[in-house]
């Protein structure tokens, strides 16, 4: 462990991290947002799921620095009298959760398909890559919308709201797996012919073991970079779907749902219900994007 830390802090990655202030700010922002939303029940001033903690009488209060603003509600309240800051903290939690889990499941799916396609070759490879081609010619958001629509159509009405988050994760990961699959496939095809894989084949290891224990660790590098960049995309996709009203229900709002709720009040002058969740979303995505960009450049030996 000490060895690892020493290598990390002495290495190029740490140096390039330390020497760009924008990346440091982005990293701190990301960390703060993840931390504060993970512990939203401690950090947030109010619990938005506890009906006793908000009151319809408090609804549509502006932020504290405006006229009619109240000290208790730093960023104002929404139409149900919920504190906007608290809804943002709880909302980011759902946005981040959906983002993380969709990226992870897309990654697992993509890696499995990529490994199989790259290792077996032949018609298996041809069929899988044709499917990937077809999917890649459509934008991810359209596929997510469609998958989401189909699954919700198949579910009975009462289950829809409960399962909405899982449906969303499935929909987003089904629209994002292709990139991983393609990357893993091409590196697997290179690794397959190397001597260590041949050695593993010769001593008679079963195929799944060769794929997971020997090839996988060698193709993971680029996959992690894609994952960082796609985390931002997944968060945007979730927000967009929720904004369009096909994502998570208003009872457990994500940032997108909050923006959707606030959008109805934009014209009557209650801008804070939309603008603050919107800003939170932009800051989160921007920070993750900056980190992803940096990671991609720092790990790419061609750019040094």
């Amino acid at each position, binding site marked *: 462990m000490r060895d690892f830390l020493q290598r990390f802090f002495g290495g190029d990655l740490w140096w390039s991290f330390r020497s760009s202030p924008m990346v440091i700010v982005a990293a701190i922002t990301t960390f703060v947002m993840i931390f504060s939303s993970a512990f939203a029940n401690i950090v947030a001033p109010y619990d938005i799921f506890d009906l006793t903690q908000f009151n319809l009488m408090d609804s549509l209060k502006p932020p504290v620095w405006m006229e009619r603003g109240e000290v208790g509600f730093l960023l104002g309240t929404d139409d149900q009298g919920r504190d906007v800051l608290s809804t943002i903290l709880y909302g980011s939690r759902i946005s981040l959760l959906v983002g993380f889990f969709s990226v992870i499941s897309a990654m697992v799916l993509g890696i499995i398909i990529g490994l199989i396609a790259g290792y077996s070759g032949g018609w298996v490879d041809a069929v899988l890559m044709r499917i990937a081609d077809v999917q890649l*010619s459509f934008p991810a958001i359209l596929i997510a919308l469609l998958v989401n*629509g*189909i699954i919700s159509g198949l579910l009975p009405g009462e289950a829809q709201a409960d399962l909405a988050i899982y449906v969303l994760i499935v929909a987003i990961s089904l629209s994002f797996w292709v990139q991983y699959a393609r990357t893993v496939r091409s590196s697997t095809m290179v690794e397959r012919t190397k001597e260590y894989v041949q050695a593993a084949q010769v001593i008679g290891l079963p195929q799944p073991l060769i794929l997971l224990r020997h090839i996988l660790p060698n193709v993971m590098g680029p996959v992690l970079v894609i994952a960082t960049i796609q985390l931002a995309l997944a968060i945007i996709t979730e927000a967009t779907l929720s904004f369009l009203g*096909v994502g998570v229900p208003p009872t457990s709002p994500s940032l997108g749902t909050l923006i959707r709720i606030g*959008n109805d009040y934009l014209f009557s002058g209650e801008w804070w219900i939309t603008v603050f969740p919107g800003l939170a979303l932009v800051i989160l*995505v921007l920070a993750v994007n900056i980190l992803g960009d940096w990671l991609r450049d720092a790990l790419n030996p061609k750019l040094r």
Partner: protein
Amino acid sequence: MLFFIGRRLYQAALVMLTVALIAFAMFQYVGDPVSNLAGQDTTVAERELLKERLGLNDSVLEQFSRFVINAVQGEFGVSYRMRVPVRDLIAERFPATLELSMMSAFLALLVGIPMGVYTALNRDSWLSRSFMTLSLIGISLPTFLIGIFLILFFGVILQWLPTFGRGEVVDLGWWSTGMLTGSGWRSMIMPAITLAVFQMTLIVRLIRAEMLEVLRTDYIKFARARGLSERSISFSHALKNTLVPVITIIGLQIGSLIAFAIITESVFQWPGMGLLFIQAIGEVDIPIMSAYLLLIGFVFVVINLIVDILYYTIDPRLRVEK
């Protein structure tokens, strides 16, 4: 050349068949068409009759081939909710979406290409640095938020521009256009910008990356050695070669513009196909969903095909091998 086009056509047909299969499967397995079309108090016998008339008792293969034949003729069935043929609904909405997407594509190219070229040629100037930062923000801003912020500033606070709809529309018989009235143009501004921002940032980054790559090549060094002016090197040597891959991406982006129009249209209540589609998803109106899917699939396939052929004609290197 013929072989190349033939192979591309075969691939395009394969994609279309896959899309048709998905659209057909939606009809088969999501919701029950009979209970969607029949009223509350239809008898079992009437339902059976309806089922027979819709051909739901035939084999799956027969139903699929009928579905494809109907779709090719532009026959997508009747909307479950609105009880109107889907073909009429789409014909009514299509002009709005097309005008919006074309306008944004034009806007994105008009601003994106010069910005990309500038940032590549003057890599370290403060202006290109701020362009690059702006483009990172542009990628991080979800489309719907750009729309909301525009509405807030120019619609609600300043009250300069209309915030929903197409404004006054002139009906040309088979095409309804907003491009002939002042209010049509004014209504177009915010949706078009909203839709264009993401494409624009993409174009800026792409052109910059490609241009930097080209500027490193030997023939640019050679052109410098020959004493050509910087202007002629950047525009007639470098930019020309940059445009080849850019055409591909831009072609593909036109397709995604139509898809992203779903978001823009629902923010601005723009009466296009995207709004129709998103409402159909909410109501599980399968005929509209599958018709939209088929249509978008078709547009994508056609654009891909055109781009491939263009690529082939522009880049002579592709023709030499084989």
